């Protein structure tokens, strides 16, 4: 049996999945100030009377780090940044303990200016004196040559609990994002570590000494150990959980739009033949643009609880949420109240919903039922419009070769999967507004927890080869090797895949022979004085987001959801 758990803004969901399908699920109210209690409560409920040894793995997706960032509750972290020429690094100051230092590397990875060791030692002393325990070290172009970051790390001489080295976080270029990512890593390190150690200890006390996996923003998992050294990867895993859950039900030969309609927001994602699209550089969170690998999701402030009013004679939905629907005792009318008026939902106070919509109907001069219908239609229109916008944005992504401009694939979703609280009702209405096929995800109430339970490990490796300089470098893997002039693209691809296989195992993969794919590959002949002097090869390989093979049971045995535990 396996367990998936997803902490959401309002509820924490957990599922227990066995060989026959979903065995149990539970939903507890999230207490974000006591997150551990919510997580532990849900785990205890879902594992009640289950023999500990029968549970094989557990995957957790929490809002722990995400909330810490959103609420500004970060641990103080030091930053040591070296840039050389370019945009002045002062613009990327992350806070009080931010130091720009000498040393620079150019775009080919050549040293332009060395590290000033005395300068680093002085900063190290100042950071220690200020009680800083976590530090980020970032250099411009460190992914082309990590020597300076490594040298600074050595000079810090284990005086700190954690040092986030920029080149280990991502192989992508972007100095400002590298700074933000290292800063976030250092700032959530102990929050993340303490929490999951507590979870692990509590499980062990219950006799469950099983591997714990953490869900990442890219919809993949990593083992606890990996997450402790790379805690930033756990940021923003929430949207990924739902998307991964919907994957189970998406057609493998189509392009799919996933709509997760919640209380406050509707989150969207796009699947290409059963694989979710990723952000090209990294996710953005709380104003930080990062290099954290994550699914491309778009969120609009429109959900079942979004408030509805009349503005300048026109119906206006959102963007704010004032509380639950009036039918559930909330303060302002919402699309959910419209569902009550239309008689589609009945588990609340229909009269309050009618009373809430009444002033709107009067202002518009139409009947109550007509008003409800219009609210509902408008909400659906807004969702479809935002989805079209997202697709246009994906298709507008610049490409850099003639071939891609002329032959580049254009995304055009041919099915829509809807999940979340009001999913069935919205699906019905959305179907009338578009000619794309619409389906409601079965088990839509716990898609997120299912997604967490079934997500497999994802990994990515970026390899950079410069045969003129005679180096092959995979910065995230702390790997470098000297290469000869004739090192080929095929050799580069093979090397990248070998590194990926090792990383995949180390980070907790269950399959020894993962399905790897090349996501970027280019080779340039370097010409100097009209002669070919070397090759510049870039390869990026990944194990893409997907589900562990055991999921088939859920589809084959549609036993329906067991009653609320």
């Amino acid at each position, binding site marked *: 049996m396996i367990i998936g758990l997803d902490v959401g803004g309002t509820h924490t969901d957990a599922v227990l999945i066995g060989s026959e399908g979903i065995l149990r699920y539970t939903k507890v109210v999230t207490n974000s100030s006591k997150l551990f209690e919510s997580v532990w409560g849900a785990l205890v409920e879902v594992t009640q009377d289950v023999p500990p040894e029968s549970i094989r793995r557990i995957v957790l997706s929490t809002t722990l780090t995400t909330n810490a960032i959103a609420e500004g509750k970060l641990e103080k972290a030091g930053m040591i940044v070296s840039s050389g*020429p370019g945009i*002045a690094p002062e*613009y990327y100051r992350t806070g009080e303990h931010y130091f720009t230092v000498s040393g620079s590397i150019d775009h080919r990875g050549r040293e332009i200016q060395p590290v000033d060791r005395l300068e680093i030692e002085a900063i190290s002393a100042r950071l220690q004196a200020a009680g800083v325990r976590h530090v980020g070290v970032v250099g411009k172009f460190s992914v*082309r040559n990590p020597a300076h970051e490594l040298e600074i790390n050595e000079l810090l001489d284990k005086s700190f609990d954690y040092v986030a080295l920029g080149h280990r976080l991502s192989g992508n270029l972007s100095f400002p994002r590298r700074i933000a990512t290292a800063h976030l890593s250092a700032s959530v390190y102990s929050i993340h570590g303490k929490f999951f150690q507590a979870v692990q200890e509590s499980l062990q006390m219950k006799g469950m000494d099983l591997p714990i996996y953490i869900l990442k923003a890219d919809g993949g998992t990593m083992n606890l150990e990996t997450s402790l050294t790379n805690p930033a990867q756990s940021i923003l895993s929430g949207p990924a959980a739902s998307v991964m859950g919907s994957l189970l039900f998406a057609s493998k030969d189509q392009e799919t739009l996933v709509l997760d309609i919640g209380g406050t927001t509707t989150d969207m994602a796009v699947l290409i033949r059963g694989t979710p699209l990723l952000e090209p550089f990294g996710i953005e969170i709380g104003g930080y643009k990062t290099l954290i690998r994550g699914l491309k999701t778009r969120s609009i402030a429109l959900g079942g609880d979004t408030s509805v009013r009349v503005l300048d004679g026109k119906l206006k939905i959102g963007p704010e949420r004032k509380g639950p629907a009036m039918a559930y005792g909330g303060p302002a009318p919402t699309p959910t109240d419209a569902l009550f008026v239309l008689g589609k939902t009945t588990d609340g106070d229909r009269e309050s919903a009618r009373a809430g919509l009444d002033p709107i109907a009067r202002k518009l001069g139409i009947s109550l039922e007509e008003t409800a219908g219009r609210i509902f239609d408008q909400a659906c229109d807004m969702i479809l419009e935002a989805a079209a916008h997202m697709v246009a944005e994906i298709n507008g992504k610049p490409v850099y070769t003639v071939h891609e401009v002329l032959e580049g694939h254009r995304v055009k979703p041919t099915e829509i999967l809807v999940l979340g609280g009001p999913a069935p009702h919205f699906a019905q209405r959305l179907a009338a507004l578009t000619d794309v096929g619409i389906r409601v995800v079965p088990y839509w109430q716990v898609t997120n927890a299912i997604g967490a339970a079934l997500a497999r490990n994802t990994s990515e490796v970026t390899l950079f080869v410069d045969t003129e300089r005679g180096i092959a470098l995979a910065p995230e893997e702390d790997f470098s090797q000297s290469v000869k002039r004739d090192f080929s693209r095929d050799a580069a691809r093979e090397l990248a895949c070998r590194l990926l296989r090792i990383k995949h195992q180390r980070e907790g993969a269950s399959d020894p022979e993962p399905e790897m794919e090349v996501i970027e590959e280019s080779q340039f002949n370097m*010409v100097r004085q009209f002669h070919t002097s070397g090759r510049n090869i870039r390869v990026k390989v990944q194990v893409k987001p997907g589900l562990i093979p055991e999921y088939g049971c859920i589809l084959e045995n549609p036993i329906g959801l067991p009653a609320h535990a």
Partner: protein
Amino acid sequence: MLSAKSKTGLVFFPAFDWAISPTHPEREERLLYTQDQVFEEGLLDIEGIVEYKPDLAAMEDIRRVHFCHPDEKSVITESHLISAGGALKIGVELVERRIERGFALVRPPGHHAMRVVHGARGFCNINIEAIMIEHLREAYGIDRVAIVDTDCHHGDGTQNIYWHDPDTLFISIHQDGRTLYPGSGFHDEMGGPSALGTTVNIPLPPRTSEQGFLYVLENAVLPILDDFKPQLIVNSAGQDNHYSDPITNMSFSAQGYAELTHRLQPHIAVLEGGYSIEGALPYVNVGIILALAGVDFQNVREPDYNPDRIRQSRDTSEYIRQLVEVVMDAWSSAPKIRASNREKGGFAQRDLRIFYDTSGILENQRETLLVCEACSGTLRIDSRTDKGSRILAVHIPRKACVRCREQGYAWFDSGEIRNYDSFYLQDRTQDQYFVRRK
């Protein structure tokens, strides 16, 4: 958080799969390190800098500017359509007011491409700035445009296209033609009789540095732009004036390029040449993008930048000072001469000998302009090449009067085609293009 003072659009199209030939300066690798630098600096994340995908230029866009012989597809490739389309995209976004500045960081370049195209010259096949400008004129009614060409080579293609157009001011700052390809662009090349003065050439001596470029900008370019009052300023932003460029001899720098851009304030910059692909382009392009966007560029410089080593000589400064005087005198006296030329009327003729270094073609042209008081006059080009092609091309300008328009059709319709491969007609009054084949 960094944000742009002016909302700036960027089309980045490095054509990573296109080269003139494997070891040619215009090869796949050219913008590789620029891309690395632009990505690593995080320029595309700056609030107010937006990246667009290039459009694909359409046949009509090309036919508004060029006579391609024997036809468009024989002399251009898709990469040219994308490169021109990149400039077009920036132009449209700007005129639609979605951006305030724009940069088409694209290749292949275009400023050596003339109105008649038999092949490639100076790495250029079609003129991407002219294609953009004429599209904006047609679609949005833009009238007065200034092009400031800061590539190290004389922008002889752009000059050729706008030689007879008084509504397009073409200013080229370049290394003296006596010392560099294409060997033209002397200060007395000032435009045809009806547009005299709206072509301005400022040839600079080898090893001119920041000081010289900025002097010319302050004392010639900016005053001339002030007089001309263009609605749109386009900068042909070649980067081969750089001290490390392998095929030229100037001493300009990334700081200099950024400062020039900052002071010139072009609406649109379009990349032209620049072949120091590691030592210059990454830094110059970052400088130009920041300067366009109004973001602090003071810290942008090459790793080996040393202003003392590239300082220009006193003789050079003095030479430039005198040259600027001559240029400004000519600029102020030109309008009178232009007016008297147009009053006189008649037919004006000139012969051109054009070498296509990239394609290895020699072309001889005879231009005949109907000089007109009412409009800029219809142009007839009789062109033959050493490869045996001969064509007749007629250009009726955008604001042609009835008489000039009729003359254009007369040349096209009643000419004796027996000795030619084809007749071509651009009627810019109707935005139409006609071909008559033998």
